[in-house]
């Protein structure tokens, strides 16, 4: 095909295109949430010695966040494998996945609180590690919750929140397993 526009003219038009394009949305809230989750060591908060109150607060925040998400989204959205679902359906899918984890999470969390009440039986170093890990997850959760309030349908944030809840559940399971092992050794 013969073109009506020669290469010189094309190059001229290309050079006139603006290099700056304004995005439709400000993505700073999402960036902020993510960089807070990977903040440099110097920014990490002091380790919290009061892990039971913080854990209880976290449970309340999670329950609120979960409830908010459950009512906000259409629970009739069919559950699909995470790899196949359209990203725009993610909030509904996220809700169902969260629901799936919730009962298990609550049971694990009750056990976690019970373990906390008998923390003296655990090695101080282990207690410190538990506190530190839980504190990090709480910080991430708080940032994600704040960001989700601003952008409730953001697929990335919803995915991160779901992943966090799964990490928290896995963490609680490991603690329960550790406590059971410790109890057997003590007895």
């Amino acid at each position, binding site marked *: *095909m*013969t*073109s*009506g*526009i*020669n*290469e010189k003219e*094309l*190059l001229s*038009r*290309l*050079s006139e*295109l*603006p*290099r*700056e*394009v*304004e*995005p*439709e*949305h400000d*993505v*700073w809230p*999402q*960036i*902020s949430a*993510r*960089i*807070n989750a*990977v*903040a*440099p060591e*110097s*920014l990490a908060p002091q380790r919290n010695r009061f892990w039971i109150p913080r854990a209880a607060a976290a449970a309340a925040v999670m329950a609120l966040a979960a409830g908010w998400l459950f009512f906000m989204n259409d629970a009739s959205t069919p559950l699909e494998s995470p790899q196949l679902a359209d990203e725009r359906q993610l909030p509904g899918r996220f809700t169902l996945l969260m629901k799936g984890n919730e009962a298990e999470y609550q049971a694990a969390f009750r056990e976690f609180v019970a373990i906390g009440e008998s923390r003296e039986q655990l090695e101080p170093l282990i207690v410190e590690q538990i506190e530190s890990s839980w504190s990090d997850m709480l910080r991430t959760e708080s940032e994600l919750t704040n960001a989700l309030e601003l952008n409730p349908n953001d697929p*990335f944030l919803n995915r991160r929140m779901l992943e966090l809840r799964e990490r928290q559940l896995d963490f609680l399971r490991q603690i329960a397993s550790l406590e059971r092992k410790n109890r057997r050794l003590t007895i």
Partner: protein
Amino acid sequence: MALIQRNEFGGNDDAEWVERARNGDNTAFEMLYRKHRNRIYGLVWRLCGGDAALAEDLLQEAFVRAWQKLDSFRGESQFGTWLHRLSANVALSDRRIRVRRLERETELEGAAERTATGARDVYAGKRMDLEQAIARLPERARTVLVLFDIEGYRHAEIAELADMAVGSSKAHLHRARKLVREELEK
């Protein structure tokens, strides 16, 4: 900080913001984001074929990656140059994954390259002929045209970023210009 005003970015004070951000100052990093985001968005928006939603994901990813890699920025170039290159890398890495995935699924290499920008509305208020013609280019031809003709990269740099030979970069550029001219002729 949402209240930061644009006019605070008047001077070339990136070095100061970078130093503060390196020490964990999120506000300083937000300054850098607000100063450079339109430039970076323009790059990734064109590289991904005008897909606004994907471009915003890439913009987000680029700045998170920059935050993580701030320690590796040694000030040998301008922060904006470093960030631009890092963002191009983020966008091209993401697109490589998408292309590979589509190739596996469809076993139609050409079609995969052509459709890798996804099915979302790619113009959203920017329906310009030339932009459309660029967005319709095959993936690698678009990459080379955007980086060479719009962003001013050299073939050697493009070859490294896009994981191709310098000769391929030149060939893709020739093809891209031809296709754009044909598209504009329609």
